[in-house]
């Protein structure tokens, strides 16, 4: 996910891998960005510390893909997506650009100068947000 404040020009990108730090709290203390429920709050707090304001934030999400034929056994991608949305819903955060799900790989990028966010798949770029 990315976040960006166009006024403060504060932004960044968080790549978390797992939905919940309850899996291993010791590891979450060591690497909070690995988990959605510790990484996302830390990401927002860091942005606020740098001058970002919640009401100005532009938030985008990409990824959360699933392997084929999962049959509900793992659903790691969809659980990541669910956790992200749950945290955003609880905190009244709207997603401005979204490219999630499926079984494809994406590369996500943010340009800090203007906040433009894009995702790329098989060389094709998709603009998720721009001013």
């Amino acid at each position, binding site marked *: 996910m990315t976040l960006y404040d166009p006024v403060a020009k504060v932004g960044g990108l968080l790549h978390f891998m797992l939905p919940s730090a309850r899996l291993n709290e010791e590891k979450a203390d060591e690497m909070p960005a*690995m988990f959605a429920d510790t990484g996302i709050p830390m990401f927002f707090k860091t942005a606020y510390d740098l001058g970002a304001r919640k009401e100005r934030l532009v938030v985008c999400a990409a990824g959360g*893909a699933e392997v084929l034929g999962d049959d509900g056994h793992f659903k790691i991608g969809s659980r990541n997506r669910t956790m992200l949305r749950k945290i955003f819903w609880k905190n009244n955060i709207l997603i401005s650009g979204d490219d999630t799900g499926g079984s494809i790989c994406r590369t996500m990028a943010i340009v800090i100068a203007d906040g433009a966010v894009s995702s790329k798949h098989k060389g094709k770029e998709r603009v998720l947000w721009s001013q």
Partner: protein
Amino acid sequence: MVAVAHILESIESLPELPVAVTRITAMLSSGQADLKEIEKIARHDEALSMAILRWANSARYGRPGRVFDLGESIVRLGGKTLLKIVLQQKVANLFKDAGSAYGLQRGALWRGAVGGAIAAEETARKHSFKDWELCFLCGLLRDVGKLAMESFYGGEYATLISAHLTPGRSFVECERAAFGTDHAHVGAELALRWRLPARIADAIRHHHEPPAEEPEHDQLFDIVHAADMICLWAGLAIGVDGMQYKLAPHVRKGLNLDRKEAEMDIMVTWSRLRELEGIMDDTSGEGAGP
């Protein structure tokens, strides 16, 4: 459609397996890792010596205020860690610049290789599979066929595969539709040309589709397959193939792989990979930290 043999024969600069890896593989296959031999390999390679020094003096193995020389470092790390460092370092040269045909950035194929090695080792240990070093090696080499496919097809690869990529179909099936073979089979044949033991070649051949039934079934293949899936979930070396792979049901059942176990494996693999990269970052200067 092009035969595997034709692919391998037509590549002018077929990737070469470093001699050190061949020697270690022979040791592992015979069930006897000769530490003196591994030490000898390490001492005669400058980049390897550098890596060993850094490892022995890292936060994990070192002691504050104490610097170990090469001899002390080798003793301190012990044979098993030394063996992994040698393999990682030597195989790095094979992978470090490859992967662009598969839509990977420089170094990504290497990260996937090491991630697979770590995941295979962890899975083997968890299931008390005694040949964990063999699992480590097979995890490391499992995608070696991508090197050969990339060398043969070059920039054409992406165009040819894109016409056959179908949602819901596994990537190896898509490769077979496009090329008449897939990177796993090509990798296995390459391993045989390197004169690696047939079991290692088969572990590479079956890393996406391990056989469920006897007599072809082998727990080594299951472990390497599971390691490959863990790397996918961890987001390592995912390129044009995306996540278009399937976990074999018999592997899920046989290795008791449920959601929690999978998440633990992802966490451990990622953490160990980060740790390795942290230690190796300054040594390589080659962008290929294990």
